[in-house]
């Protein structure tokens, strides 16, 4: 029994810490203090995941599956949470919504993400998804006096609840078809018998629920409105942490049924076409956006498409590529959203043309933003390139060359709207007065940018970790624990 607790220590610690945060907020009611403790909590949980990296096994009567994959995912979630919390104080202060609850809700959302990645049972899958999503609905509607924030929360909630309903229906159909809730037992039941029609319908609904969360086409329509209306740091959180969590859950589910899915041409075709549609629609819609927040929202749709290419490849290489991609994406996208938040809260600058001449006034900030934009576009020496390369290479290995080719073309198109921002920052003369920003935040963005560059120049270590991390997730039926 103690093994269970040791295995799932990061999750238990995160759950306990969220209770602690609530006690703290109830007793002292100081947002700044809650913020510091939330950051400490993220660091603690991330640290526990690093220490416990080699541990693996099933915990709590096969409810949780813990392994390198889960630890790696936990680190991504904690990183996302830490960065978002670190960057959001100024924005919230300026919008006059600096509540301590913001940090509590974000923290509990991360607990939900960790559950999603660690789910070995569909009950946990659902609880994790709900925990993450409910927290995100609250974050989206945090600016209660702002009509657009209300609209964002309402849209996200209604569509999200619908997606959760689909997912739950899928779970119940799968249970009806196999009589099991544990994912690995379902896989065994499918292998011994055969996948019935009922199972496939349920599986489709389950996957649809996740596709909604990662905003894949045709379930992406909520994305621009929600990201636009939410507090910008919360949008950064949704586009990185939540997306990484939904992808981890998708990988967990898909690896459990890998033998079944690898022999199914329909599955490959469906996921490939969704990936293709997501890349095309996301990039083309992003081209037309003037508002940077909406542009980043559509770009997040496009990036979900690139990551889906890895799922379509259905090989360990593809999944490992997705893990690396989510890590890089977390860094660069939080960086980009963070810069937008910084300039938005100060002077309400949201258009690409507002960034004209940023380099003259704030070279460090402009440089960091340029790194984020180039990395999002997938320019070679940066982290975003390696992520795309890994995913597309996996697709080529899986004989999906056309999909990889489409991905490359789509990222070529995406270069236009990313480079446009860079062009405005560096090539245009400033209009109006200088944009001011505190030097400390510029330094923080510079650090994130350095991390993105380092991930691009020295990716091998991380890639070795992601490859190793997947080994356990790959073998679902080996339950000798």
């Amino acid at each position: 029994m103690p093994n269970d607790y040791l295995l799932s220590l990061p999750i238990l610690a995160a759950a306990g810490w969220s209770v602690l945060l609530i006690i703290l907020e109830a007793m002292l009611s100081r947002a700044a203090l809650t913020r510091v403790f939330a950051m400490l909590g993220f660091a603690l949980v991330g640290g526990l995941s690093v220490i416990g990296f080699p541990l693996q096994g099933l915990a709590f009567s096969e409810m949780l599956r813990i392994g390198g994959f889960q630890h790696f995912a936990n680190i991504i979630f904690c990183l996302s949470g830490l960065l978002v919390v670190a960057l959001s104080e100024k924005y919230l202060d300026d919008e006059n919504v600096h509540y301590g609850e913001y940090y509590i809700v974000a923290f509990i959302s991360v607990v939900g993400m960790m559950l999603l990645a660690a789910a070995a049972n569909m009950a946990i899958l659902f609880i994790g998804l709900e925990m993450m999503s409910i927290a995100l609905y609250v974050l989206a509607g945090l600016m209660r006096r702002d009509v657009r924030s209300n609209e964002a929360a309402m849209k996200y909630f209604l569509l999200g609840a619908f997606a959760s309903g689909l997912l739950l229906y899928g779970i119940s159909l799968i249970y009806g078809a196999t009589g099991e809730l544990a994912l690995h037992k379902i896989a065994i039941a499918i292998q011994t018998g055969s996948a019935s029609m009922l199972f496939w319908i349920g599986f489709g609904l389950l996957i649809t629920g996740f596709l909604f969360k990662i905003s894949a086409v045709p379930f992406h329509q909520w994305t621009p409105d929600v990201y636009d209306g939410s507090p910008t740091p919360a949008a950064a959180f949704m586009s990185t942490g939540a997306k990484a969590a939904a992808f981890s859950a998708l990988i967990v589910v898909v690896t459990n049924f890998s033998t079944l899915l690898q022999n199914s041409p329909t599955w490959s075709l469906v996921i490939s076409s969704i990936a293709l549609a997501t890349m095309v629609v996301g990039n083309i819609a992003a081209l037309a956006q003037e508002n940077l927040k909406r542009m980043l929202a559509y770009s997040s749709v496009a990036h979900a498409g690139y990551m889906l290419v890895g799922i379509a490849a259905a090989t360990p290489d593809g999944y490992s590529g997705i893990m690396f991609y989510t890590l890089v994406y977390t860094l660069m996208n939080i960086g980009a959203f963070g810069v937008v938040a910084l300039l938005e809260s100060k002077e309400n600058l949201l258009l690409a043309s507002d960034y004209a001449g940023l380099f003259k006034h704030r070279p460090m900030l402009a440089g960091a933003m340029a790194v984020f934009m180039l990395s999002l576009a997938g320019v070679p020496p940066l982290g975003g390139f390696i992520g795309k390369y890994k995913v597309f290479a996996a697709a080529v290995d899986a004989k999906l060359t056309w999909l990889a080719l489409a991905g490359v073309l789509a990222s070529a198109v995406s270069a236009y709207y990313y480079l446009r921002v860079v062009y405005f920052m560096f090539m245009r003369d400033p209009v109006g007065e200088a944009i001011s920003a505190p030097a400390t935040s510029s330094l923080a963005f510079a650090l994130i940018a350095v991390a993105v560059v380092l991930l691009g120049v020295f990716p091998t270590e991380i890639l070795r970790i992601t490859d190793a991390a997947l080994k356990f997730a790959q073998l679902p039926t080996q339950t000798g624990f």
Partner: protein
Amino acid sequence: MIYINGLNIETKTTSRMDAQLTEFGKVFLFLLVGVVFVAAGFITSSLIRPHRPYDEKLSTYECGEEPKGTAWVQFNIRFYVIALIFIIFDVELLFLFPWATVFKKIGPVALIEAVVFISILAIGLAYAWAKGDLNWVVPQPNRPKLPEKKFDKPAKKKVAEPAEPAPTA
């Protein structure tokens, strides 16, 4: 046992069982008969009774105040927060009910498990309490300040004073 006429959804192992109802089915049948009985009473009385309405009879209170306006009244939001918190604890109760039925069999471990569950939720209640959400917000009417002396002009507001609302208790 799950067998529905007309639908081909049928279980593999157990074919159609006989139509015997369980104990709960009897309760349900009882409920149904109750509903039918009441409905039948209403319907027959509406068929038999004389029907001669006039204005006075149709008014909301036949002998009393004349109602004005509609019955739509905007509720205060304070009910809402209380109702929200109530629902959350209602759900908690549902988890505790099955616990109570097996509590004796499983023993002290069950007690610890339930205590953990309840105490986590109790923290939620404490949070709501500490944040003042259980306080009954009394509406504070915005009365204009009258000058204290009869012939004084009302005091001019200082410009620098920020108009911040007083922190709630």
